[in-house]
């Protein structure tokens, strides 16, 4: 079974719950998805979205659109945001030291995805996340 979903909003902390809710809805509408696939995909989406909330400029004014495609072999999410372009090499995918309090977000997202790609496309930033289904 396939399905497509779209969510628009402001990239602020409270919007993260709307993403969680959307992914919960996906789980209900696609019982064929393994709970672990959806759980790890949700983990990645929230990390990428959290990164936009935290680093998107100007703060509090960035809008985003999340598009999700459920396909027989994969979950593919694209988060587009209206913020300024992120500087090259803006994120680290190496896990930080154990006692560091931050810097794990995109490393964690990378660990649970087949691919995580960032690109500047016209006036928007685009984060594409793919998880191959087990």
């Amino acid at each position: 079974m396939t399905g497509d979903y779209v969510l628009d909003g402001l990239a602020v902390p409270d919007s993260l719950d709307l993403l969680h809710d959307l992914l919960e809805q996906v789980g209900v509408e696609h019982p064929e998805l393994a709970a672990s696939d959806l759980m790890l995909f949700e983990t990645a989406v929230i990390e990428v979205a959290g990164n936009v909330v935290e680093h998107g400029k100007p703060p509090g004014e960035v809008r985003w659109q999340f598009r999700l495609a459920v396909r027989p072999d994969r979950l593919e999410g694209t988060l587009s945001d209206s913020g300024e372009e992120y500087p090259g090499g803006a994120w680290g995918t190496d896990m930080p030291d154990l006692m560091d309090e931050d810097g794990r977000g995109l490393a964690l997202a990378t660990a649970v995805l087949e691919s995580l790609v960032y690109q500047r496309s016209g006036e928007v930033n685009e984060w594409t996340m793919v998880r191959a289904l087990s």
Partner: protein
Amino acid sequence: MAEDTRTAVLQPTGRLNMVAAPALKSLIEESVAEGRDRVVVDFSDVVFIDSSGLGALIAGLKCTRQAGGDLRIAQVPEQVMTVLRLTNLDRVLRAHPTVADASHDW
């Protein structure tokens, strides 16, 4: 047995993300400031954690240890356990099956 005045059990609920993490961090710091430097975080009502939540746990771990105590976690659900493993934090935050298990032999 003497009353245990050094142990606090904290029970966050729902999603431990960038909205909720600062409050957990503050609660742990307040607990330590009140002399309860042995903190058990009960995860039985947590459904999701992100890297902000992990950051709050690490901050709590450092804060309790600096005071001579420690921070432990109990009743950890699958998503949290998976995230701890993926970030290698299971090496410093061992999951205890119950709050009671986590609350003795400090």
